[in-house]
């Protein structure tokens, strides 16, 4: 919400207005390439205009915030408005994710496309209902079968990246950095086994 001196109408500014129009009606984050195609402009010029918008639509300054997420650009509410949003809206996608759902989601995010039997083998429990719930929430989707007669595999969706604020799949922490004690544990074990085996 800014007052302004006058309406500026240079070409970049005009492009920026078209981009904000696209972003306010889009139902998903829009990649730069798609914005360029829709506006019939060079990607480079789109990026210049986006930089302008990033300055305008940012926390503290505006109630609408532009963010780069899930491989594209999207508007969201400023954090200042979180309480009001909570009063008015529901969060069906992320509300009440169980431990089983989160673990299943983690397996799909890291190993996807991955099938239900594979997930079950890692978690030691059948994954059917957890997967069904995640599909219903739109966080996970079918990704075909590996072999003709194999089970259906699953992958995470763009909505997953959006909900968890990831710009892309590479944004997850490396699996090697997680559960670090396991490595230490194994080294110890191999050491023990070595001594015993000798």
């Amino acid at each position: 919400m800014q007052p302004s001196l006058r309406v500026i109408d240079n070409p970049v500014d005009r492009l920026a207005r078209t981009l904000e129009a696209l972003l306010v009606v889009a139902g998903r984050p829009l990649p730069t390439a798609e914005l360029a195609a829709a506006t019939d402009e060079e990607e480079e010029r789109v990026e210049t205009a986006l930089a302008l918008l990033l300055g305008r639509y940012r926390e503290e300054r505006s109630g609408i915030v532009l963010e780069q997420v899930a491989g594209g650009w999207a508007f969201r509410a400023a954090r200042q408005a979180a309480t009001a949003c909570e009063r008015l809206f529901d969060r069906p996608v992320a509300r009440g994710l169980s431990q089983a759902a989160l673990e299943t989601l983690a397996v799909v995010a890291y190993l996807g496309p991955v099938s239900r039997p594979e997930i079950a083998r890692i978690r030691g429990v059948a994954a059917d209902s957890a997967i069904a719930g995640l599909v219903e929430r739109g966080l996970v989707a079918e990704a075909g079968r590996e072999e003709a007669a194999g089970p259906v595999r699953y992958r995470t969706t763009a909505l997953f990246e959006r909900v968890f604020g990831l710009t892309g799949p590479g944004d997850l922490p490396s699996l090697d950095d997680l559960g670090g004690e396991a490595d230490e544990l194994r080294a110890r074990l191999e050491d023990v086994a070595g001594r015993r085996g000798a």
Partner: protein
Amino acid sequence: MSAAAVRDLDLDLEAFEGPFDLLLTLVLREELELVDVDVAEVVVAFVERLAERADPDLDACGEFLVLVAALLELKVRELFPDAEVEELDPEDAAEELAERLAVYRRFRAAAAWLEQRLADRGDRWFRVGPAPLAPTPAPPRLPPQEPARLAEAIRRLAAEPPAPSLHHLGAFPPVSRFLERFRTLLGRRHRFVFDREVEGLARVEQAVAFLALLELRHAGEVALSQPAPFAPIVCSPASA
């Protein structure tokens, strides 16, 4: 009780008090002498928990059996470090146990990371779905399709499933998989030799397959015969 809950099984032993998962960790870290642990007590605790349920969870039983078997194997190694035991390589047993725990722990940590991430972003709201005054997208038009693709899709669904995967050695297969498989074999062939069916499978998978076989026997669905100790087990429908 689910298979995951097996790890959370609460134990109250002389040498240790806490969840089963922690017991395994401490043993593997050598912070707890396995020699001091009464494995029978662990089994009793599990059976007690199992008795509280109307229908036992086979996957949980399988999971428990595999973990306890590995524990026992380790304990035997500790008690008789010089004994020669055929086939049982302590390195393998320990490695298998550690591998399973390590993989699961990683993903549990990843789940915790995701949960934290979600909590951190709790104050960022965005719209899911179309904007109220967005133009309505045109319904997707489908170009002409080949009818043969429909037949292909049905053939794909009717194709025999591949043999159980072997590249997850040390991972835990659900008991239900073998139950289904043996039931189908009984239905189609009337007789099959267990040893031949599990040939080439990982030891863990063989153990789980055997558990499934015992369950079928318990349910009266299969008759087992073995001409001599350690000879191949012949399975046939109980009624035949």
